[in-house]
């Protein structure tokens, strides 16, 4: 598996803040745990959908959303552990290839929420290479902020299915908790797209 890199040098909060700056009508889905705290720390938004359960589902929520909203960019922001639990979803998503979907995996190589146990990513599994093998249009491993800016442009382009692993420092930052009322977040998200509650 080559050289094993356990996380990397990037600051996760800075990565997410940069990805979401001037976001316009970007739709964001977050995997449970630290990724959702990072997105919340960048600023709550009606176009954010935060998952608090259903580990492994973030990418699939993104696929359903991207399919129903082909005119908008959809960005899934999740951790390496969360994405690993939905490993097969990479195959499912690759078959669908929505051009407006990007998955950003914040990869610190650890299960940060549960005590920083080393994850599969930290032991050598490169999720971007897995996605490339599945046929994603673009994949990449990002280790510096210039790459984050380039990724932001790719998200906006809506010109192909993409996955990036962002190599972040393995550290537990203070939690910035998104709202936990799933019904509220759902209705708020749908209302922002023009859909009323039933």
């Amino acid at each position: 598996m080559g050289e094993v890199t356990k996380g990397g040098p990037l600051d996760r909060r800075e990565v997410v803040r940069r990805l979401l700056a001037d976001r316009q009508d970007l739709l964001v889905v977050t995997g449970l745990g630290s990724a959702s705290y990072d997105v919340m720390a960048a600023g709550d938004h009606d176009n954010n959908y935060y998952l608090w359960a259903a580990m492994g589902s973030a990418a699939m929520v993104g696929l359903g959303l991207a399919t129903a909203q082909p005119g908008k960019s959809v960005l899934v922001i999740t951790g390496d552990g969360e994405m690993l639990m939905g490993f097969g979803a990479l195959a499912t998503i690759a078959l669908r290839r929505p051009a407006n979907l990007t998955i950003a995996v914040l990869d610190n190589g650890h299960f940060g929420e549960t005590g920083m146990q080393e994850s599969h990513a930290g032991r050598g599994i490169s999720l971007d290479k897995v996605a490339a093998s599945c046929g994603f249009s673009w994949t990449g491993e990002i280790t510096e902020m210039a790459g984050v800016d380039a990724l932001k442009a790719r998200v906006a382009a809506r010109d192909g299915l993409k996955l990036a692993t962002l190599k972040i420092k393995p550290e537990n930052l203070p939690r910035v908790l998104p709202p936990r009322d799933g019904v509220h977040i759902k209705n708020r998200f749908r209302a922002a797209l023009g859909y009323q509650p039933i």
Partner: protein
Amino acid sequence: MEAALQGASGTGWQDDVFRVLKDHDVKHVVYVPDAGHSTAIRLSEADDTIHSVVLTTEEEGIGYLAGAWLGGERGALLLQSSGVGNCINTLALQVCAQFPLLMVVTMRGDWAEFNGWQNPMGQATERSLNLMGVMTWRADDPKDVAPLLHGAATMAFNGNSSCAVLLGQRLIGEKKWVK
């Protein structure tokens, strides 16, 4: 929706499944294949107005359909009873966020099952769904499929509820193990 209200259409329960889904404006059919779902899968794949998504494991469909609903569209999950077991933890998403969820479950380990390894999950399917907040209806007679699926779809999409129709093994027929 009139045909659904009147019961079976006379074209067979397999066609009824797809017809009722269409009547309820289902735009996404996500599935792990099963022989009992083969007609609905074939018709969905052939329909340009429906996104047909083959899954590697059933719980992927729960996340997908939540995302589709966030984006304003309806869908349904087709799966076998064994796949219900794969969905259990993920069903918390429906409970907590009250996404509509419509499941059509073909049963194994239910009646005249040749492979006893199907029995544990088959026997636990309905109670497992109920434990996770999914309402269930069983169809063992072809004429019940359309009205029960119509009822489940109505309650899912109008009540933000999780609803499953279980298609019994007596309806589907015995699997032929020796040709």
